[in-house]
């Protein structure tokens, strides 16, 4: 890159970087893949709702990271003299029935929500991809067995199934994550299988087969990259449902246990004060709503960017 030693490095470097990212001739694998990312980012940038969602989620991540700065006293600092205070300069979102600052709990609770969402995604994406691509690629009895197991999981409403698992495993965040993952993988597997079926007979798969590649290599290196975009989109869209299910489990007392500031549990705690202190339930409710909506809108935007047919 030119201009790195220039005194106004940043000024001259930006166009140089852009030229490097839009170069007709790519000189290294890194440049080729970064160029791909850059063009995707440019497409995403043209989508205002997706960008708004991205900003909202970035704020959420920032709040979660900066929770110790926003609320250095922690989420469990009680002040029984200042119970149920309405929103004010001192307590932006008011206090709850034990005098805890709701903003502090909301900020610390963002960590829990994000942890649940990322862990579920990290569990569900590989399982769904593995099961779906294997079923689609091998077909026959492998497909039949995997998809009937899938049907068993799909046939229950996810919250009911999660409730059942948590009831069996015992309440708590860890078990909530396991339960939500168990209910969230079947749609991903279905999607991956459908994508696999459309490409398994493509010539480029035949070409790698007659190079002598093993089935695991074909699936991992040739089929999964084709399924990945739609799986990423689907998981982002499902994130809203995952967060709602986590909040629902918290609300029912089966997810995070007190005093953890999980948003669903906070909502549940505010239920008894709905008429007298609306902010107890309205604030975590709004946080759940905004986060779910942001994930949904971002998923929509990503679908436009990642759709392989758009190239």
């Amino acid at each position, binding site marked *: 890159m030119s201009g790195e030693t220039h005194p106004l490095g940043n000024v001259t470097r930006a166009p140089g970087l852009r030229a490097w990212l839009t170069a007709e*001739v*790519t*000189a*290294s*694998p890194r*440049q*080729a893949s970064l160029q*791909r990312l850059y063009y995707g980012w440019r497409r995403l940038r043209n989508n205002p709702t997706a960008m708004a969602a991205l900003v909202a989620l970035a704020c959420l991540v920032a709040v979660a990271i900066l929770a110790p700065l926003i609320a250095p006293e922690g989420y469990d600092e009680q002040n029984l003299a200042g119970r149920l205070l309405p929103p004010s300069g001192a307590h932006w979102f008011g206090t709850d029935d034990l005098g805890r600052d709701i903003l502090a709990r909301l900020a610390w609770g963002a960590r829990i929500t994000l942890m649940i969402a990322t862990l579920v995604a990290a569990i569900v994406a590989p399982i769904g991809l593995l099961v779906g691509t294997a079923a689609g690629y091998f077909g026959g009895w492998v497909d039949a067995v995997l998809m009937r197991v899938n049907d068993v999981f799909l046939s229950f409403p996810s919250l009911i199934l999660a409730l059942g698992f948590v009831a069996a495993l015992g309440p708590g965040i860890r078990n909530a994550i396991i339960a939500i993952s168990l209910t969230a993988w079947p749609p991903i597997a279905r999607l991956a299988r459908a994508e696999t079926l459309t490409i398994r007979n*493509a*010539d*480029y798969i*035949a*070409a*790698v*087969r*007659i*190079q*002598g*590649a093993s089935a695991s*290599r074909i699936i991992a*290196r*040739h089929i999964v*990259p*084709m399924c990945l975009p739609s799986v990423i989109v689907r998981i982002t869209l499902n994130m809203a449902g995952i967060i709602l299910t986590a909040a629902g489990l918290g609300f029912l007392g089966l997810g995070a246990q007190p005093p953890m500031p999980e948003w669903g549990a906070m909502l549940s705690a505010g239920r008894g004060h709905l008429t007298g202190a609306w902010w107890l339930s309205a604030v975590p409710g709004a946080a759940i709503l905004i986060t779910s909506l942001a994930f949904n809108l971002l998923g929509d935007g990503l679908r436009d960017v990642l759709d*392989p047919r758009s*190239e």
Partner: protein
Amino acid sequence: MIAVRDLRVSFAAATVVDGVSFHVPPEEMFGLVGESGCGKSTVLRVLCGLNPAWSGQIVIGGKAMSPVRDRAFFKDVQMVFQDPYGSLHPRHTVNTALTEPLAIHGIGGADGRVAAVLDQVGLGGAFRYRYPHQLSGGQRQRLAIARALILEPKVLLLDEPTSALDVSVQAEILNLLTDLRRQRNLTCILVSHDLAVIAHMCDRIGVMQHGRIVEELTADQLNENAARHPYTIELLAASRGYDRALGERLADE
């Protein structure tokens, strides 16, 4: 080099290849010509191991073939597909497409081999990190040929390698194939519905109709109009361009 005897392939109820026999000596190019659906592409897919449901006898390089091939087989026999828009992985760069066969067979020195084969098919190093959607149809087919050749096979199967391309690009690809075949002493089978392409490229030609080879003749015989089978004569007439009288006569039949 390649001997096929009484090859039969059936899909469900339909018999697609119905007793095909032919023989290709080393370093010869054998052409299979016929209308679409006559089973010529199926013969190629059986030969390269993509279609395991067949009966008959296939001998390649002195070895009798079973329906399932081992990895060493694919090092010797490679295929170029008809549609360069469908035969290249859309998310793999030129470099990835070419290093993949080397990685599968555990062949070292990938960097030099990729550069050399790109050079041979007339794609410079500038194309190395491009994605297929950044290439034209002809460039894609060159890449597909490079991918088939990087394992240095002895047999190259060509399934209508030019039918998806412009006429001007077709000639370039055909010339490239002629050159490469000579340089590398390849034994080839070329499948096409275009008799002109076949006559230009091949030493001997098998004319296929309804899953059978109805006539086999040399390129010279073809050029001297020595074809005897009525279907071959019909194909020859059709390849000379559109002829109203012929069209009407065929429509009447």
